[in-house]
């Protein structure tokens, strides 16, 4: 899995389209937030927007690229070989999705640098140990959520398109750029099952020192395990279904 992660990290880092998503999503959305929020709110809001727009880039890439990774393997005839290999397929898929979200580190760097250099909004990191722990915990949790989605994508040929469906809804309900308090009350419990919510809380709390980030980091790790188990079960179910029908390459 470690080798798979390293190979995919390098590979995804060289994909111009993925790099575009990672770099330009935070640039555009941080800019929109800057222009919208500059009237009357403090720098903390803009610093939070910098973190949120970085996570938006990571989430966009995870949903799009996890789906695309499977679609690509299906198209070139690799999916059946990977499923038939002695290595369990979850151990093949999980490093791909985690590597994809790990490439999101570029998104974080871009967003923080951009808001600092162009808009003069520095991110005052109050708790460095918590921030350093929050970044990989968030990335890991988002990557495993990508794994869970990827497990479902195995079954559907149009997975690449389904990935796009989750982009705006998760951006909205996880409070990445919009405070959850602005949303309808019923959305908040829904947001709890999505890793980006806790990743955002963890990174924002560690950076701005509004409250402790360690509980959010713990939730990220808990969700990582939950997504892993749920994804493995789902994957087993969908693979059995595809193998029984002989539709792995066709679905």
């Amino acid at each position, binding site marked *: 899995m470690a080798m798979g992660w390293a190979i995919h990290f390098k590979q995804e880092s060289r994909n111009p389209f993925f790099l575009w998503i990672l770099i330009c999503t935070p640039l555009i959305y941080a800019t929109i937030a800057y*222009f*919208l929020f500059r009237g009357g709110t403090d720098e903390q809001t803009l610093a939070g927007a910098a973190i949120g727009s970085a996570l938006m880039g990571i989430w966009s890439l995870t949903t799009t690229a996890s789906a695309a990774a499977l679609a690509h393997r299906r198209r070139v005839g690799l999916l059946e070989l990977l499923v038939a290999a002695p290595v369990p397929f979850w151990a093949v898929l999980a490093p791909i999705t985690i590597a994809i979200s790990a490439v999101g580190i570029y998104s974080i760097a871009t967003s923080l640098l951009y808001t600092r250099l162009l808009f003069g909004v520095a991110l005052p990191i109050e708790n460095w140990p918590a921030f350093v722990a929050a970044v990989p915990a968030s990335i890991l949790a988002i990557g495993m959520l990508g794994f869970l989605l990827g497990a479902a994508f195995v079954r559907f040929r149009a997975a690449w398109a389904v990935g796009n*469906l989750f982009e705006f*809804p998760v951006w909205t309900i996880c409070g990445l750029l919009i405070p959850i308090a602005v949303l309808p009350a019923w959305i908040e419990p829904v947001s709890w099952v999505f890793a980006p919510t806790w990743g955002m809380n963890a990174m924002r709390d560690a950076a701005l020192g509004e409250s402790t980030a360690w509980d959010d980091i713990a939730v990220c790790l808990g969700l990582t395990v939950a997504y892993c188990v749920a994804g493995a079960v789902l994957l087993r179910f969908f693979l059995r279904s595809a193998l029984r029908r002989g539709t792995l390459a066709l679905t």
Partner: protein
Amino acid sequence: MRSLRIFAIGGWLSYRALFGWLNPYLFVIILLVPSVTQILFFAYLGRAAGVEDDTFYVVGNAVVAAAVPGLFGMADTITDERYTHTLSLLVVSPASRVALFLGRAAPVAVNGAIVAGFAFVVGSLLLDVSVPASSFPGLAVTILVTAFACTGLGLVNASLGLRWRESALLSNMLLYFLLLAAGVNVPLDLLPGWLSTIAQGLPVTHGVEAARELVAGASLADVAPLLGAELLVGTIYATVGLFFVRVFEFQGRRGASLELA
């Protein structure tokens, strides 16, 4: 007659091919659902920022929804040909390029108008935005004109696809720029002067402004200058796009780089 056949039948077949040999549910999940979720995202962002009301974001994002088919659909007419190894065959065919590409552009523009109309209706219903019935005809015209202008930009995008393999990247870049600078989500007076000046040359900018005025009670005659500007912008982009198709096609043939670009 041959050009008319290429325009109509060729354009229709190309449009069908955009959806993976026409799975209707792809149309819903690629175009319709995201157009609505985008409206909700920006409407709530607008509430959080306290800059404008829901109407501003519903109208802006519904109109810009016409750009998604315009940009991506037109780019795909080139990249899909390359993917299926038919681009070289297309380029050596004697078909009129104007008929060929305008034929591909027409259904894409209609498609954009349908998506924008859908986003407008569903977004208004979900966010309880009141739109006077008297503005419906004007809004329909505005959406059609904006969809045409976006498809004009899409033609430029498609032509660049003859030279650049990463046309999906370019489509995203253009779409993001429209979201930022065309007055869709950020009022033009909040943008720096140079950016709001650039916005005057973008498709969507004048269409969005016209749609907002119509929703506020203006008549079609009142917004005619804005629609004229949008139409002019679209025509310029379409002309430039067709010109670049010829230029890049010639370069691709000379350099034998059509399949490699």
